[in-house]
């Protein structure tokens, strides 16, 4: 499949008075397939927004290469095929929802009012299209932001924290919309802290920490390594220990024991052994590895082995002070 986004050693560095030259984004090798939902994760100040800005041509890389939809980053032709929903966006408050779409549409040369109305209907704002942005709730503003991101029928969407600050219902609505984008064949690049959301909808993710991509790949691959917890009663602890299951833990409970083992092991052997001893299987709980676990594990580990200096920066606007 063709790559929607491809970067090779993409680097962005700034001059710092104390630390000299520091790399906010360090030799990034990012790969996003067309038609997938890609999650771009990282703690605050990891370099997520800087990366997105480079890909959008808003800021300029210090070194390395980047390609969006096969064209070098900054190519104006590409901008006709992509869209961007920034984190905590601000829209011109005096405009109505419809006027806002008209304005952004005019930047693409679009003038069809019906198209704008249809988009607003798609994001469930058609009843509020005549209200001004100042009258919109957070969720409505986010939805109009999504609407503007669909104006040019983009092949690739950059969504930065699309569900930030929204209530659970709005979360779900946005989530369903994003899924529908994939169904329509679009590529979605999401930067988010909502790991549960990302886990639900993303095909592939990358985790960036201190400017370096620590993990990148399919979610299913990255989340391998779940465990099974079997709670038993009526058998001695030694029975469980004697099973010599590797990487297994036995914990004593108020009544009984808890066997915690990797999911690769067949639980039936444990069940049979307990039954043979006339014991009771109280419960069997599979615990899949969660993205949160992976994320925490990644960001709390030592930084990449390249030994390059990285610096955590404030990513919201401009260069570090």
């Amino acid at each position, binding site marked *: 499949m063709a790559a929607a986004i491809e970067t090779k050693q993409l680097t962005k560095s700034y001059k710092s008075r104390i630390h000299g030259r520091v790399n906010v984004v360090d030799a990034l090798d990012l790969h996003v397939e067309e038609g997938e939902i890609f999650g771009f994760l990282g703690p605050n100040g990891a370099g997520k927004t800087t990366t997105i800005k480079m890909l959008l041509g808003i800021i300029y890389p210090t070194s390395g290469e980047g390609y969006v939809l096969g064209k070098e980053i900054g190519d*104006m032709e590409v901008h006709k095929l992509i869209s961007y929903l*920034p984190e905590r966006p601000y829209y*011109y408050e005096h405009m109505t929802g419809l006027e806002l779409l008209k304005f952004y549409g005019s930047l693409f040369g679009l003038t069809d009012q019906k198209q704008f109305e249809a988009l607003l209907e798609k994001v469930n704002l058609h009843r509020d299209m005549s209200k001004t942005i100042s009258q919109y709730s957070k969720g409505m503003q986010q939805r109009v932001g999504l609407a503007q991101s669909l104006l040019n029928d983009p092949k690739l969407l950059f969504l930065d924290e699309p569900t930030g600050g929204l209530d659970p219902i709005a979360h779900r609505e946005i989530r369903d919309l994003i899924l529908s984008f994939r169904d329509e064949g679009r590529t979605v690049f999401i930067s988010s802290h909502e790991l549960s959301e990302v886990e639900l909808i993303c095909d592939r993710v990358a985790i960036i920490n201190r400017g370096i991509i620590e993990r990148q790949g399919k979610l299913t691959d990255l989340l391998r390594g779940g465990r099974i917890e079997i709670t038993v009663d009526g058998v001695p602890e030694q029975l469980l220990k004697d099973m010599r299951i590797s990487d297994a833990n036995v914990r004593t409970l108020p009544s009984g024991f808890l066997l915690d083992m990797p999911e690769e092991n067949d639980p039936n052997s444990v069940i049979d052994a307990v039954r043979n001893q006339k014991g009771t299987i109280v419960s069997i709980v599979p615990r899949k590895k969660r993205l949160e676990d992976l994320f925490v594990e990644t960001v709390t580990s030592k930084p990449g082995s390249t030994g390059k200096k990285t610096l955590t920066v404030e990513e919201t606007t401009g260069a570090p002070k």
Partner: protein
Amino acid sequence: MRSIFSIATTTVGEAIRRRVLLIILLIGVLFLVVAPGLGVLSARSETTVLRGMMLGIIQLTSAVIAIVLTVYMIPNEIERRTIYTILSKPVQRWQFLIGKYLGAVLALGLMMLLMTTVLVFTFWLQQRDASAVADLVKAPVMYFVQMSLLAAVAIFFSTFVSPLVNFFLTGGMYLLGSLFNPFFQTLSESQGTPALAKVFAQIVNTLLPNFANYNVQNPIINPQTQIQNEAAYYLQVTIYGLFYIGILLVGGILVFDRREV
């Protein structure tokens, strides 16, 4: 061009809703309305005082509006991230800058038009002299060119300095630009001035924007003064203004193109 026009009209819509600008405009209009009272206080030369006051009010208010309108324009867009949703579209940075500038100038023009209308109406109530009113309107037209130049200065500085610094820079440039002509005239006519100082002053007078060129109110306030080829002078200073606006906008584009937002 379409993008520039869209950005410009959006900028106008935003500008005319900014409270601080509306307050400044309201104060200016109020002063215009009460100015005839001041003219009456001067039993002698009532019309002279009235004309001088009203034109001075328009010029001063317009300068404040021009500066306040433009120093925050680009930094606000960056801080609120509205610029990102625009630059992520097929809009070049220079189109964005030009669109913002044109929007600022349009908004400024609308506000000045309102003040000029109040001026005309108030003056007409006092004097009922159509030719005097027509004469009076020439000054605000030149002030508009002057303020467009001032707005271009502010936009240029806003591409690389913070709003507070820009406020003082632009205000300072307006002050200096208004001083250059009379200062240079004094210097060049004075016998005791060293030649080097005269050359330096000449360079400064040539290179930096001369806002004094647009202070054409004196013959309007004192109508007995006769100016030859007034229209030619107006045309020349307008072309001068366009040249200088071009310089500032190009300079702004060159800086903005390289700027991290």
